[in-house]
């Protein structure tokens, strides 16, 4: 997932992007006129997969918000006399090694997923937009320095980089969010920068400049709105990736604390019982898959809606 966004977003660390490479799909600035939101929405709604994705994402959000109302039991409640129970009327999805209700833990798990997914990508976008805008705006030395810094963080494989940061910060939700953002922002800033560079040469910007608009005005009025579309599509797409990364970290035992109901934690506990108590990993897996698909479909739909020629 993470490899995907990274490498498709921008293949190289430098220039060769001139080729007609659909590979660079998500990197290519989706030059959508801001006035076309209606049309974009129309195209999005016409995309069945995207709508399906939206339904999944909304379901996830609702589950997260209303978890205490939906969950049949306290996700922390242990019942050592009823460990590893197969799914039954009492425990629809069974109980784990400490006798906790799996359905409740999956429901509560959506909270961490939403929290980490949204927060880390929001943070990444915030850093990325600022750095990208600065690099694109000032160009020259500033650009070189910022982009080299971006290269440094880009060069870390996401999970590995995140683990290093978490080692330094300690486990927990906040470290996970920060560590994921720290290695995700370069993609955003590259996206924005290349978008700015290409938009800067666009006719309407030349026109604005010819009419005497200042550079900052051009950036704020013309360049950012046109570049932000690409960032948004990336963001929607990447939330799914961030959720996978977060679950991966917990799966490896470096994410959130193990007693916290979280999908990666559940899988980490379940793998000891592979082939013996398969329901322990099957249901959390389904939750993750549906969540990721939801965000991917929304992201794809958004990208296509923003720039139909990329379909």
């Amino acid at each position, binding site marked *: 997932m993470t490899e995907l966004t990274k490498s498709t977003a921008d293949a190289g660390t430098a220039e060769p992007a001139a080729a007609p490479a659909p590979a660079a799909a998500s990197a290519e600035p989706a030059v959508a006129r801001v006035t076309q939101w209606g049309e974009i929405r129309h195209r999005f709604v016409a995309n069945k997969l995207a709508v399906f994705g939206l339904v999944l994402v909304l379901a996830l959000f609702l589950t997260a918000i209303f978890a205490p109302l939906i969950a049949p039991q306290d996700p922390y409640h242990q019942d*050592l006399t009823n460990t590893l129970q197969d799914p039954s009327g009492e425990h629809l999805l069974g109980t784990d090694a400490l006798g906790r209700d799996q359905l409740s833990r999956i429901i509560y798990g959506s909270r961490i997923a939403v929290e980490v997914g949204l927060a880390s990508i929001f943070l990444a976008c915030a850093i990325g937009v600022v750095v990208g805008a600065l690099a694109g705006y000032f160009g020259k030395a500033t650009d070189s320095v910022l982009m080299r810094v971006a290269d440094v963080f880009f060069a870390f494989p996401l999970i590995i980089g995140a683990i290093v940061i978490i080692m330094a910060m300690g486990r927990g939700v906040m470290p996970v969010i920060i560590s994921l953002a720290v290695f995700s922002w370069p993609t955003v800033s590259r996206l924005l920068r290349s978008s700015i560079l290409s938009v800067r040469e666009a006719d309407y910007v030349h026109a604005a400049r010819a009419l005497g608009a200042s550079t900052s005005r051009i950036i704020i009025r013309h360049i950012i709105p046109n570049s932000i579309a690409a960032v948004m599509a990336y963001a929607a797409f990447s939330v799914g990736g961030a959720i996978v990364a977060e679950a991966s970290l917990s799966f490896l035992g470096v994410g959130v604390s193990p007693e916290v109901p979280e999908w990666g934690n559940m899988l*980490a506990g379940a*793998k000891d019982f592979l*082939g013996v108590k398969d329901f322990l990993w099957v249901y959390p897996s389904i939750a993750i898959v549906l969540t990721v698909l939801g965000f991917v479909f929304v992201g794809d739909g958004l990208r296509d809606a923003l720039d139909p020629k990329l379909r």
Partner: protein
Amino acid sequence: MRGAKSAKWVAGAIVVALAATACGGGNDKGDSAKGGVFRMGITEPTAIDPFNAQESEGSLVAHNLFTGLYKVEPNGKLIPALAESATTSDDGKTWTFKIKAGTKFSNGEPVDAEAFVRAWTRVADKKSASDVAYHMAGIEGYEDLNSGKSDKFAGVKAVDANTLEVKLSAADFEFDKKTVHTVFAPVPKVAGAADNKAYNDQPIGNGPFKMEGAWEHNKKITLVRNDDYGFEKAKLAKVEITILNPNNTSTLEYQGFQAGTFDWARMPTPQLPVAKQKYAPKNQWVEADTSGINYLVAFNQNAPLNSPDARKAISYAIDREAIAKGVFQGMQKPASSVLPPSFADVYQEGVCTTCVKQDVAKAKELAEKSGLKPGTVLDFGYNTGSGHEEWVQAVAQQLKDVLGLEVKLNGKPFKEALSEQKDKKTAGLWRSAWGADYPTADNFLFPLLATGSINEDPATGAAQGDNRGRYSNPEFDKLLDQARATKDAAARAALYKQAEKLAVDTEQGLIPLWKRTQYRLANTAKFDNVKMDFFEDPNLAEISAK
């Protein structure tokens, strides 16, 4: 040290269950070599050179490559090996060992008193930075040698070829028992200094087996019978030790055993009940409570656990039985003492009265008395990636349920965990375990509970010793000193028992949880006399093929 790194009583991070997947036929030509080939798996040892062999894997190899002054039976009884006799001065400070004459290292060098002086000096040398050298700390001159002030071991002397004299800086009537540790093994001249990489990977020893080729790191170690062994020779022709991935060694061993590629195996904890059902009837199931303890470090000097009552409240609140059944599926046994049942002379079942049975009422009462009010924040640390995640959650929940404490689980990787435990400010609980290095009560009580084992670093205040709960009671320390200086074994045992009762029962300096119970599979269909030794390894030197 053993058991620590591999934490083998609960399998490592990734344990994959097996549904009896016997894959491929095993290597059955074992019997072709005269005496048979015994095959087993271990994780990569830290070292097999006795100067730094430490955990169970390393000592398995070192014990079979080297024979020292004494051997030990699983019940802790000493058996003389190279030591034909030992005499102790009345003050307990001078030990004189008569070394059996005429035995040789496998390269022909004689095993004499000089070989011990050479070996021990090599170990204690500053440059060796041996992790196990501290076992020699009681010997005179250790300080100077270990700090680099001297290059001679003042307290160790070869009086003549067959007489070894050891001077201790304090009385110790159980020094002989310490020498069962491989760090006390003799080495030949070719060993050279500790950084002799060639010797590190292919030690030449005087044991029942010798290396066939060098240690192939992360692949295998092969031992062959030493036909010139100075004692009763081994019956096995060869021992093939496959080095497995540390991530799930027990699963691999179990799988290997089922497939017939290993003759000895550990099992992943979730598989134990099934494995027992399958192999116990075939008489291939080996089970023993060994010389170790799983316990909770309670930080004695910081609130909220800075009173015996508070620690007792915690101990009473834990339902060991329920966790043993629910989480460990009956494969762990609650402990009610620190000293293990394998030390028959000092074992006191139930000495920790709070450990015997969960008592909610008493727990609440004691908590109330000691100010451990509901809502009190209690840190509960553990090291991650070693399979502790599940049961610590169960303990934490019981403390929440019974005492209404706000338990904060704090999982950390090994090194961080250790550094946090050492910290002077750390409070609350920390999971821990201890395995004996040699069969003495002192090896539990002194490191875990003596004031001297806090060994505070004057600069940082960190506890450098193993008594990280910082239990400190002069009366206890005095009992230990007395015991060490008591020549009579029975009287000594009584003193140790008294000390344990004081520290563990009266003052609850730490909180015992479960015994160290070990399970193995042994291929009794092909081999006779397969047993688990004191170090939880197979008794290779005594096994014979059918």
